[in-house]
């Protein structure tokens, strides 16, 4: 596969090093992923996330149906508000993690991962019930602008394009729609970096202009490399590494995305998850920091007192902390410390609280 987003040429023009990402040609960086990471923490960066999957759910039974499919409860959302949720199987294993927006009681928008597109659509379609329809808009691009200056600079860029959207007053985890001659824009105050910012769904043909306008306002183009170090510093999971179908959200550090407050609500995986939330689980996620040279990476074994207790699920070098950080899944408490096997040597790792960024 060799899929290109509407920004393919823009990436090349900006000096991107392109790599394959689940069949998509995307920038890993535009020169230095560490510089890009720092730009997001200090000012603003823009990411092409057009490869991600948008699924629109509509119908009079849309809310009831989603309450039966998602671990988090969309009934508690106000119009245009979003939440983070998992889509689980009957055993409580994670099929995907996603953001769900309630546009109104009969219309929802789900943003799911690129690599799980086919799987998610098949699962949702298979479980359709009642007056519910699914649609996957395709003539759209998606950009994420993230950083302390992201909203201000995006507002300037939108103004320069004649797009009138009051994003300065958009609350965190809320979205707005702008309908223009050229098409519809959907802008949400969400992100995957731990910084303030917006994620914008817009007509494909306008994406290159927005990308250029943002760069002109001083926003730095950022690739997948920086995206990964930023999200890991923020303590956010990556599906396929920190989340998979064999483990539940509770076993993966995101039990909070399972809402069991409404005891009457039945959703796929509910019984297993309710049990796990009530009694706890041995298998759990820990956040680790390496206070010496070396880099923790996915797949490395975690040991406690010389015995294997788990595996690193995501690891990298944190440009903000200037040391290696990781998320790991272990089956024993490691509060007093543990070792990570790096290139055949056990290196002592320190368990910490999330997000890593607060350790600075």
């Amino acid at each position, binding site marked *: 596969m060799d899929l290109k987003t509407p920004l393919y040429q823009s990436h090349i023009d900006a000096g991107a090093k392109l790599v394959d990402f689940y069949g998509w040609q995307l920038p*890993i*960086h535009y020169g*230095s*992923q*560490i510089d890009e990471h720092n730009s997001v923490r200090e000012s603003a960066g823009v990411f092409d996330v057009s490869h991600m999957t948008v699924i629109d759910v509509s119908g009079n039974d849309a809310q009831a149906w989603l309450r039966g499919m998602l671990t988090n409860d969309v009934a508690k959302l106000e119009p245009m508000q979003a939440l983070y949720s998992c889509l689980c199987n009957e055993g409580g294993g994670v099929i995907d993690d996603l953001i769900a927006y309630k546009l109104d009681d009969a219309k929802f928008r789900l943003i799911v991962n690129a690599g799980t597109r086919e799987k998610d659509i098949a699962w949702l379609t298979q479980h359709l019930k009642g007056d519910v329809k699914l649609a996957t808009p395709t003539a759209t691009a998606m950009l994420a602008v993230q950083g302390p200056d992201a909203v201000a600079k995006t507002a300037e860029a939108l103004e320069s394009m004649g797009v009138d959207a009051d994003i300065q007053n958009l609350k965190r985890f809320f979205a707005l729609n702008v309908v223009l001659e050229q098409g519809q824009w959907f802008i949400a105050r969400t992100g995957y970096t731990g910084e303030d910012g917006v994620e914008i769904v817009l007509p494909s043909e306008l994406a290159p202009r927005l990308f250029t306008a943002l760069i002109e306002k001083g926003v730095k183009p950022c690739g997948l*490399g920086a995206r990964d*170090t930023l999200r890991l510093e923020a303590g956010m999971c990556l599906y396929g590494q920190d989340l998979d179908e064999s483990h539940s959200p509770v076993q993966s550090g995101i039990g909070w995305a399972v809402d069991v407050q409404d005891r009457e609500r039945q959703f796929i995986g509910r019984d297993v998850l309710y049990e796990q939330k009530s009694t706890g689980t041995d298998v759990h996620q820990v956040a680790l920091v390496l206070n010496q*040279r*070396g*880099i923790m990476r996915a797949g490395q074994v975690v040991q406690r007192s010389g015995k294997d207790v788990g595996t690193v699920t995501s690891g*990298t*070098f944190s440009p903000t902390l200037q040391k290696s950080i990781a998320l790991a899944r272990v089956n024993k408490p490691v509060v007093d410390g543990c070792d990570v096997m790096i*290139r055949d040597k056990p290196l002592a790792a320190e368990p910490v609280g999330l997000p890593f960024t607060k350790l600075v």
Partner: protein
Amino acid sequence: MDIPGDLRLAATHEWVRINDDGTVTVGITEHAQEQLGDLVFVETPELDAKCEPEQAVAVVESVKAASDLYAPIAGTIIDSNPDLADSPELINDSPYEKGWIFKIQPDDVSDVENLMDPDDYTNMVASGD
């Protein structure tokens, strides 16, 4: 970036420069640093250690991956770049000058002639490693 004409290259992407005093300086090529991405740690070789060709003597670690460096010729390690501990990115920014990694006192400096010249190395890289 062109490879300076006085360098000789190993197939494992180390470069070698013969110094006036008969020692050799070793680093990694522009191609290697570009493949690795931003470097974050460099483990320089132990001083006074003996080294043999194709023996792993140092490690460079980028955000992406760790990579062993191999001694290009036989000899003794006599120096390593002290700036790399705080500034590993010197290798990314200046792979042939400021980003030098270590120095060898060769057993036989003519061993350097067994390595590739810049054109042969460039052809090797172009043909896909």
